[in-house]
């Protein structure tokens, strides 16, 4: 199915919540409001025409100028092979972008829709501070449990020391700001 058709189905089902679609380029996507994102995710997974059963990746983006944090969900729909020794192929491919306010970043969790979202959302929370409401265990996954701040935010300041280990040298402190 062409990405235009997928986005059309999505727009017909959720006319209020799909605010923008991008069909040009190699990364066609729909922008979904965070309030209804969980319902949209269930529809994408369970609709007979779509069957997006594989969440491949969640990318977190920090838009400092627009004061927004973004989560980009890459979805694949797999095609079962006809024969027993055939290979699975990608039938449909689409991306969903969910924008949220940078100062109060809340996005509903889809960890119950796709199990793969569990760790990806923890990573996005760890590095960008996006709060995924309804996540079963929203704790840090990469940094230490007592780490302060979210390192991939563009206004992040490196710590001067951590657990008694000097963290930033004089040279690194004089780095240019982003």
């Amino acid at each position: 199915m062409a990405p235009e058709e997928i986005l059309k189905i999505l727009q017909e089902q959720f006319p209020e919540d799909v605010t923008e679609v991008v069909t040009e380029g190699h990364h066609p996507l729909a922008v979904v409001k965070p309030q209804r994102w969980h319902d949209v995710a269930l529809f994408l997974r369970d609709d007979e025409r779509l069957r997006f059963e594989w969440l491949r990746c969640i990318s977190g983006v920090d838009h400092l100028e627009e004061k927004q944090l973004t989560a980009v969900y890459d979805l694949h729909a797999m095609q079962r092979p006809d024969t027993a020794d055939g290979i699975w192929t990608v039938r449909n491919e689409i991306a969903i972008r969910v924008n949220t306010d940078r100062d109060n970043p809340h996005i509903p969790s889809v960890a119950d829709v796709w199990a793969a979202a569990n760790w990806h959302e923890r990573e996005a929370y760890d590095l960008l501070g996006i709060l995924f409401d309804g996540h079963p265990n929203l704790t840090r996954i990469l940094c230490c449990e007592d780490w302060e701040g979210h390192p991939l935010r563009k206004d992040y300041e490196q710590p001067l020391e951590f657990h008694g280990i000097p963290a930033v040298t004089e040279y690194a402190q004089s780095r240019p700001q982003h």
Partner: protein
Amino acid sequence: MSWIENRFEDNVIITSLDWAINWARESSIWPMTFGIACCAIEMMATGAARWDLDRFGAGAFRATPRQADLMIVAGTVTYKMADRIRRLYNQMPEPKWVIAMGACTIGGGPYFKHGYHVVKGVDLVVPVDVYIPGCPPRPESLIEGILRLRDMIRHQTVARPPETPQPAAASA
């Protein structure tokens, strides 16, 4: 060997004992099975058949710090790992040595400036005896580092260091 260290002057018995102890120590440097990042791949290659670290008695990678003499810190040290490294180092029995292998371990390497969670050198966490530069170092470099470590061990002594002359106490 703390029961004998620093108790005797340098003499012919001590130097003979030194020779025997150092020979034993340098000939069986058992490293800890401990690879953090990509340098560990080169460390594994060093231990395997082509470079064969067992030629130097250092190929018996121990699975516990309590049996290890040498910690080859092979890879990027993060702050999360630094606590573990310090604990593992404290669990190793004396005598123990540390090799810092690769650019990340020596001084942060490519993560020096923007690596927010990379320790800028493992010598901020544990004392390091031999530094091996490279990204990653080739197995020959690691073998060279172990040979340098053997040189260090060979020149150790259990004798008491010569006393430095103290200024005479003022007579009352």
